[in-house]
């Protein structure tokens, strides 16, 4: 079954791949970061095409918003220009194997997808189906219901994880006590 407009899909996919390549290939770290932001936005548009508005919003807000801003801070603090990573690349030989590996990865994944991916018919009817839930309450409510009813334990664990991460960041960010 087909979801989404083919033309939109094509444009989005080209943009996503291009921005991904930009992340990988730009010399300037800030350009890489900007490409990543673009890529994240493209992905959010993908989520919209997949009829998941809430998740798309979250993606833009949190990922492209908060996380990338943090990245921006660090990048501008540590690597403001391209000259910081000058110097002979001691592992130049790794480019070849890396390319090959990427091609293999992509290729085998694509082969696997084309061979084995199963598209089941969407269950358009039925009380538990996604479609009915979304039809009934909107996808935010569906999301919340699933999160707090089915996935409450992971939710709580995630909160603990976030706590630990905050503590870790604070500890790691401290300057050494001897220097005042």
């Amino acid at each position, binding site marked *: 079954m087909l979801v989404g407009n083919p033309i939109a899909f094509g444009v989005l996919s080209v943009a996503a791949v291009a921005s991904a390549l930009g992340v990988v290939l730009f010399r300037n770290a800030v350009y890489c970061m900007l490409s990543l932001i673009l890529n994240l936005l493209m992905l959010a548009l993908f989520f919209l095409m997949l009829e998941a508005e809430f998740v798309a919003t979250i993606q833009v807000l949190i990922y492209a918003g908060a996380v990338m801003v943090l990245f921006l801070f660090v990048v501008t603090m540590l690597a403001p220009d391209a000259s910081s990573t000058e110097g002979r690349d001691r*592992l130049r030989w790794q480019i070849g*194997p*890396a390319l090959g590996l990427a091609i293999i*990865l992509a290729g*085998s994944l694509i082969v696997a997808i084309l061979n084995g991916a199963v598209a089941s018919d969407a269950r358009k009817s039925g009380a538990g189906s996604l479609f009915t839930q979304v039809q009934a309450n909107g996808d935010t409510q569906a999301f919340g219901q699933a999160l707090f009813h089915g996935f409450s334990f992971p939710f709580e664990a995630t909160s603990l994880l976030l706590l630990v991460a905050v503590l870790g960041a604070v500890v790691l960010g401290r300057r050494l006590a001897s220097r005042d």
Partner: protein
Amino acid sequence: MQNLTWLILALPLAGFVALGLCGRVLPRWLIGLIGCGVVCGAFVAAVVDFISTLGMPATARTVDTTFWTWLTSGGLTVKFGLLSDPLSAVMLLVVTGVGFLIHVYSIGYMEGDAGYWRFFAFMNLFIFAMALLVAADNFLFLLVGWGGVGLASFLLIGFWYTRPAAVAAARKAFVVNVIGDVGLMLAIFLLFITFGSLAFADIFSKQYVVFTFAPHIIAPASLLTQIVLIPSVTLTAITLLLFAAAAAKSAQLPLHVWLPDAMEGPTPVSALIHAATMVTAGVYLVARCAPLFGAAPFTLGVVGVVTGLTALMAATIACVQTDIKRVLAYSTMSQLGYMFMAESAGGFSTGIFHLTTHAYFKALLFMSAGAVIHALGGEQDMRKMGGLRHKLPLTFWCFVAGGLALAAIFPFAGFWSKDAVLGSLLARGTENHGAPLWLALYAVGLLTAGFTGFYTFRLILGIFWGEYRGGEIAAAHGAEAAASRPRGGDNSGNGKTARDPLARVHEVGRAMSVPMLVLLVLSVIGGAYGLPWQNALGGFLQPVTGAAVELVTSNPLFYVNMAAGLLAALAGFGLAWRAYGARAASFIPSRNPLVVAAEHRYYIDDLYDVVLVRPVVWLGVQLRRGIEGATLDGGTRGSGSLVGWSSGVLRSLQTGYVRNYALLLFLGAAAILVYYVIR
């Protein structure tokens, strides 16, 4: 009367164990007491046994006491038992008696030596092993005793083990002895195959039917158990192997090379082991197996030829030796040849007779030589002696007595025994079907007698006559100081002063002189039990060794033989007097090629060295390099270095770069992915 043979073995063994375990801490007098006491006890037991054997009727003099069964394996049953019969009684008397005298002598000779306790422990071990050899009633324990005396000889030759010459000599003696041991073992195997048992009673009591082609025997069953069919090849093989063992132990050609080197040991060792007892084990073996040898004429011929050659060769070498102990060693070799020659002619009891008299006078000669060496502080070279008869009168007369007995001068003991030996050869040569071989051997024996007289007199003149040729005698004298001093050292630095260089030379103490005197008496009268008119010894030994082969006293050849032997010896004396007595000893090296060859012992040692020793050593070195070095060591070291190399290779994976590790990670993931895709 109770048979006391077990005591003869038990006492020296107890002495060995006691001295071996505690000797280090015991006081000297106690060590000497234990060492000599046990042998004295053994001698007393041997005397008691002898007397009781005499008391039995002549035909029933064998007492075979079995103590327990040693092993039963398949068809072989071996019991540990001791035999007490005329032959073993005579041998035990000689071994324990002369052994006891030499133990007493050692108390004086080895005084001050650091290994005093070790010496007596080993000497007791030797007496035990020799007694076991002689008293065993089966071949297996004879072999045990055989090996035991070889071991004791090794330990005692290398007694001063810090000297490399002594260690090398001990090793040489042991290696050559082992060759004989192998011969004995092979003979034992063949004996077992032929007879099914190793006990003397089973082997020597049967009638042998020797055949070349399998005979067809028709006989009643009762007779069949008393006869043994032996192929003549087997019998010849057995007897030749037995003779090979005897030749190794008794230093006959070609296994004689160890005996002169064995003089590196202390003089009492030379006296006991290499003159009186151990080297006579071969003679005993042949005499014990007299029934076997009697049925193998080919072997007897071989024995006669080989030992005759040995006797002559050894006598000639003794004529040019300058070390007094080596002269006596070659003399022993020559006299042993005489014993074997008598046995080869069938006179087994004659051989034993010469064995006993030789024990007396050779032990006496070695003891006297030891006294001289002791007095001169370690000097053994004849060229540095001379004129000692005024300083050492007792030693001089002992030496003279022993020498006269050795050279077979009437009426000393050696005269009667050597006369009997030559007589048996002549008797075999002139009997009805006598082969000319025996006459040839008789001639060899006469010639050797001449040489014997020559070197004996030369020895006596060289040590005791003329002017003293040596240097200053150093202060320390004693057995070990003698050993540690380099021999032949010329201390003539102070000889120019008018001081008498022999001022500190003195006679031996009582511990050494009393045994010498006892042996002197025996050397004079010891021939009494073998006098030809009665031949008490021959009659005594007859049940074991068979009838003595001798010239009948009514035969005119008897007196011709006596005169010939005496004349040969006196001729030797005369020649020696001419060369060494009249003028100051002419020990100048001679250019005569025969003399030079004799001085190099006819190059036999060099021949062995080139043909046997060097190839074996080369092979050993190659094996060490090739197998042990390259293969085994290389293999273990190689596997170690292989592990090291491979871990070095693996270590190169740990580059430390994060990106490399990431590559490996992704490689693994990609591999799994590809695997599932392909599947």
